[in-house]
């Protein structure tokens, strides 16, 4: 009987076929093209400021990666941002202490996420339909609470977090994203929690039989997703310094695009934080570059949609062709 090696032998060529490598090549080519097209692109300050365009979404993309790897999906994140931003504005208007305001904001997001998780696990309903429902429920709550008014007063700390820089260079939102990405990569790839999330995504029934509390994991992941949406809401409200009920409208699509483009399989079980981080930079640099070229936001929306479909459609189409040839 021959031993099966724990890890396949390392080959340099294998790196070339890795999704992360392909994504990295795409990112580098975008950087090169952008810097050739616009002289303003490679300016360090411009590049740093461009991270404001995606840092908040990127924070949610990290927890969304966990959710999707566990074979779930959450379409309600943008609506949770709306709810949490309202809580942020409202508690500020009541004159609460800054830390209480922030805690209550985070709590509101956590509760929304837990609500998703509870319905999905308790009634065994697919997350896509539950979060389609809570997407309008949460957004609707924000609308019925704010109607056509808005909040524009937030604690100083929140405004600083949203638009400020550490040492005058690194935006707090971007810094938070990078730190969280490292923590999340560690949890997903180096701990047993991460392994369990993969096995839940690969085969929930089998995972259940091996003694993983699938429902508990699902519940916690949705709660986390809500919590991090609230965190993003704090950065976003601080940056925009005005909150209307339509805040972050359509973000769920952009966040899911970040995750799926990063090589996370939409039906769970595979993907990596590194891939998602690279895809976040790809999308960020792409929209920054298109913005410098004065392409309107709509162009970026169409482009994102196409990229999303083609990034999955193209590889699987090639695969089908190959199989036919064999």
């Amino acid at each position, binding site marked *: 009987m021959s031993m099966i090696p724990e890890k396949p032998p390392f080959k340099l060529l294998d790196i070339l076929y890795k999704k992360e490598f392909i994504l990295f090549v795409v990112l580098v080519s975008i950087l090169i093209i952008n810097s050739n097209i616009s002289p303003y692109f490679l300016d360090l300050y411009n590049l740093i400021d461009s991270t404001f365009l995606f840092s908040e979404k990127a924070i949610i993309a990290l927890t969304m990666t966990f959710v999707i790897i566990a074979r779930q999906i959450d379409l309600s994140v943008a609506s949770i941002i709306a709810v949490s931003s309202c809580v942020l504005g409202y508690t500020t208007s009541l004159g609460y202490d800054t830390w209480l305001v922030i805690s209550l904001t985070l709590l509101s997001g956590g509760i929304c996420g837990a609500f998703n998780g509870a319905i999905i696990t308790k009634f065994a309903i697919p997350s896509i339909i539950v979060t389609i*429902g809570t997407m309008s429920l949460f957004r609707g709550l924000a609308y019925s609470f704010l109607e056509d008014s808005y909040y524009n007063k937030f604690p100083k700390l929140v405004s600083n977090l949203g638009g400020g820089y550490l040492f005058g260079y690194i935006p707090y939102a971007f810094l938070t994203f990078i730190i969280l990405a490292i923590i999340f990569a560690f949890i997903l790839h180096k701990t047993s929690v991460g392994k369990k999330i993969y096995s839940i995504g690969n085969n929930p029934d089998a995972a259940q039989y091996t003694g993983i509390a699938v429902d508990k994991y699902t519940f916690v992941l949705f709660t986390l997703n809500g919590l991090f949406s609230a965190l993003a809401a704090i950065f976003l409200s601080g940056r925009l310094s005005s909150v209307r009920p339509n805040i972050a409208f359509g973000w769920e699509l952009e966040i899911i695009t970040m995750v799926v483009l990063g090589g996370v399989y*939409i039906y769970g079980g595979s993907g990596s934080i590194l891939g998602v981080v690279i895809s976040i930079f790809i999308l960020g640099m792409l929209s920054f570059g298109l913005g410098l070229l004065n392409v309107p936001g709509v162009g970026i929306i169409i482009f994102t949609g196409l990229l999303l479909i083609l990034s999955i459609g193209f590889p699987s189409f090639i695969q089908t062709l190959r199989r036919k040839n064999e």
Partner: protein
Amino acid sequence: MKKFLTNRDFILFAIIMIGLVAVGFANPLFVTPSSISDVLTDTSILIILALSQMIVILIRAIDLSVASNLALSGMLISLLSTVHPELPVYYFIALSCVIGTVLGVLNGVSIAILKVPFIVTTLGTLSIYRGLIYFVSDGKQVYSNEFSKDFLALIHYKFLSLSFLFWLAVAVFIIIYILLNHTRFGRNLYSLGGNPDAAKYIGINENKYIILAYSISGFFAGLCGYLWVARYSVASTQIAIGFELTVISACVVGGISVMGGVGTVLGCVLGALLIGLIRNALPAVDISQFWQLAISGAIILIAIIINTKTEQRKEKTIMVEN
């Protein structure tokens, strides 16, 4: 008799009637024949879209792009009508349906041939189609005075004091009812949704049915593109934004299972009617329009929970010895 009373469609019908009476007590003006006829007219587009969405949901998929498809088809024919107002209205309707069908086929091809999961595909085309409206229109609106008279006239035609829209919805109901209950196509759709593996074994071509289902959904989205633009006499980048959620909630309330293979055409129509009733009744009982979104969200959740709880469908598993 007992079977009849516990029938889901009957319960839904009863809820609609009770709701109507309750709103009637609060605001008697709401239950006059002309007001009810208005509600029916207002709900007709929702009924048509819910019926076509039902076909997609039956095979365990969802079409999130219907509202964008509707808006894009509507905008394209509106732009054409400003350039060529002399063309007959039937030309515009046919063209709108063709555009919608093409957009639907694109969805179907992406899902069936490129194997891009339906949620990714239709989320993608939701924004692509919506984005294209800005491109073709430059973000401008087409106002009522820019349409030709014929373009807007058809929609105001009445028969037995009920609107053209309502009769069209009835026609679509009959067509889809026959399609799903009395043709091989319908039976195969149900079996694909109920058990895709078994359906494939008996020789049902899954890809063909996916593309067909999305084409039908696209066809009716295109049709509703004309109806929407003509009814509200305006085409803009914003029309019907978010309407896909209303359509899906109508299906879910109507008892169409998102697990596929379960649901009746009548239930779907009743679901749409209940949602339409609620949307129209809220202003009549003095509830702010801002609550509408939250209430539809709550209704989806309640309906889906009730569906799952009452769904008596037992999984039929056949043990196969290997």
